[in-house]
């Protein structure tokens, strides 16, 4: 469903800013759990949809923020390309704008890099109804501050993504997933070795004693890797990685608060019990810790940080606290793009 509803969105933002009415930006409403709770009127953006440009020779796709992520990925797949950061979806309606604004990446992130690496440009609706264009549709662009990349993971606190231009990449010639039976400790050892090798390890996941390793390249390369690494070939790898990405697999099944720890490379096992799932060569680990464990402190002790990814009713904050000077800059930037403070107030941090 293609529609440009910019004028209506502008009008709504202007009115909200004038009246001081907080708005909760709603795309597909599939990531509502992520970040702090927002008290505000729903500001639906999904209608503002449509792929505007995709020329495979440019490696760039531009689409309106409300475009369905599934549609974007289908169009790319049809031309042998993909979104390299492998965005997860936690429901059918995930939008492209939501995927970028949440800044969440899937299993391929350890290989391909974070969401912000692929943001080339945005058309942004500010809180007070300005429509601004930052970046563009080219790979190299140093004209003006790189405001577009700041939108990756901004959780809507600076503006609504009316349009996003992303760098896309070709799909690999082939992929192969090998499975090894190892303990958490052995898995971390192996991942450490693999991540400092030249092997094209495009994803990894350890859970309940099973380590899945995905490699990409030509068949000849994959045959050679299989000989070196051993293990069994996973015949249902596509389904497996989709389940890891979207949290629909056995590893994260169940209820209760879910914590994500993001860690420097080669971090040791954390003194917090066995993780439910270890991804990104050991740099992203998921836990349902026992009550009373200070997850932030445990992650910070090894130089990482933790996110209360799915919170229980008693937890208000989602993200690791920022140093005062950095938090002050967040406040200043919020004032630049949302002077009345009406867009997703408090979604990232209190007072933002």
């Amino acid at each position, binding site marked *: 469903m293609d529609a440009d509803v910019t004028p209506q969105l502008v009008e709504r933002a202007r009115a909200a800013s004038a009246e001081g009415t907080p708005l909760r930006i709603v795309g597909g409403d599939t990531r509502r759990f992520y970040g702090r709770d927002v008290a505000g009127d729903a500001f639906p953006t999904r209608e503002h949809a449509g792929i505007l440009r995709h020329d495979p020779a440019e490696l760039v796709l531009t689409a309106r923020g409300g475009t369905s992520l599934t549609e974007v990925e289908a169009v790319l797949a049809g031309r042998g390309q993909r979104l390299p950061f492998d965005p997860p979806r936690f429901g059918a309606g995930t939008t492209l704008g939501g995927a970028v604004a949440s800044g969440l990446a899937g299993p391929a992130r350890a290989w391909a890099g974070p969401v912000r690496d692929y943001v080339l440009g945005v058309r942004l609706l500010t809180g007070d109804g300005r429509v601004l264009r930052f970046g563009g549709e080219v790979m*190299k662009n140093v004209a003006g501050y790189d405001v577009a990349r700041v939108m990756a993971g901004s959780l809507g606190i600076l503006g609504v993504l009316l349009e996003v231009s992303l760098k896309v990449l070709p799909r690999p010639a082939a992929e192969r997933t090998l499975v090894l039976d190892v303990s958490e400790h052995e898995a971390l050892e192996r991942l450490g070795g693999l991540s*400092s090798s030249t092997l094209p390890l495009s994803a990894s996941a350890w859970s309940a004693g099973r380590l899945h390793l995905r490699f990409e390249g030509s068949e000849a390369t994959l045959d050679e890797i299989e000989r070196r690494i051993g293990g069994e070939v996973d015949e249902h790898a596509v389904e497996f990685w989709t389940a890891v990405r979207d949290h629909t697999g056995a590893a994260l099944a169940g209820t209760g608060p879910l914590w994500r720890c993001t860690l420097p490379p080669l971090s040791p096992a954390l003194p917090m019990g066995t993780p439910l799932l270890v991804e990104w060569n050991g740099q992203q680990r998921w836990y349902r810790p026992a009550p009373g464990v200070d997850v932030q402190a445990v992650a910070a002790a090894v130089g990482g940080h933790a996110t209360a990814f799915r919170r229980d009713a008693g937890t208000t904050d989602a993200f690791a606290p920022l140093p005062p000077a950095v938090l002050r800059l967040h406040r200043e930037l919020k004032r*630049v793009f949302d002077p009345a403070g009406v867009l997703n107030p408090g979604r990232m941090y209190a007072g933002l």
Partner: protein
Amino acid sequence: MSVEACTPFECDALNTQRHRPDLVVLPRTASAVLDVLRACRRRSVPVVARGAGTGLSGGALPVAGGVLLVLSRLDRILEIDVARRLARVEPGVTNLGISQAVAGHGLYYAPDPSSQVACTIGGNVAENSGGVHCLKHGLTVHNVLAARVATMDGEELVLGSTSGEAPGLPLLALVTGSEGMLGVVLEVTVLLKPRPARVELLLAAFGDVRRAADAVGRIIASGVVPAGLEMMDAPAIRAAEAFVRCGYPVDAEALLLCELDGLPADVERDLDAVRRLLLDCGATSLRVAASEAERLRMWSGRKSAFPAVGRLAPDYFCMDGTIPRRHLADVLERIAELSREAGLPVANVFHAGDGNLHPLILFDAGRAGDVERAEHLGAAILELCVAVGGTVTGEHGVGVEKLGPMCTQFGAGELEAFHAVKHAFDPAGLLNPGKAVPTLARCADYGAMRVHGGKLPFGHLPRF
């Protein structure tokens, strides 16, 4: 420092603009940098940070009544972590210095601007420097994990994280490429990559530019991501061949250099695919470097293209626009027309894979009217880049050089937002004032000089 000692700092690599600095400070430690900033902030003295001064857009041009803060003596490599593939370095360490320090471990730092022997990593962060291998291996912003940055208030910020994901907004990406306007880099943690197991370089000649441009799009659409994909036109080919005798086909109208790297079997497959595509696109000759020595010789012509073209005329301006690749052939043809109209030759050397053009405008500053004609031609080329959906600067930065063309690319709303972002980091406006983002008043003047169809940009602004 004596007046003589200050003179070398009066410009960066954009040497048409000079101002001898009133005071040059060369600190050796990060804490001394913070002290200088605090002292200047108290006295409302502007500060311009400078690394090696290799920038091409005048970003490190001193400002009157200000301090030039030269960071080249903060040149220690603080930590090399081979297992984690990280290096933590001070801002004055050179780009190539990082790669050399880790070469023994089979690692390197990927972004490779042409000035990499001299340019510093602090300057690379300030400019978001590119190079010839960006399409596959990324820009500075993709290869820096964390940085310690000082604000003009003398406050230290830790941005990014070795985990690759820091909480909050990705402010490291905002500071990267901010041209020393938002903060001063005190320390950088960079990502190191393993040297590829195999590297192959192809050289293809074409009888016309359009075929070469088409080949660029065909290669990328085929699913191959070359490590480098460079193009040169006839004037650039001939100049390079005359300068370094690198074996380029001087009768060709266009030349493509395509580098492939990776695991041997993958490179082998891509090499076959690219070879077939190039022939299919009408390449008149095709060569694959048979040895490392030949590969380096084939690169030498491209890498010395600027000085080689520089021998053709007393002066040249290097443009830096980026365009969507599909417009490559049309834009090159239009540049040739503009060049004929201006009566000034233009040679083209560029990162075709990224769509990043470097038209070199040849002129003689000693000849009456030449500088103005060259500047006019340059502005017309950059406006063309913007008109087809591109940008006025792909990797050299705005500095002072492209303040005018910035008015073509951005409207008043975006420029006001940029000034507000600057104000968020530097409320007193003392850090590198007057660079990178034009004032609205300046754009009004620029518009008045360059009226399009009787319609002035920034028509709502009062004029004085």
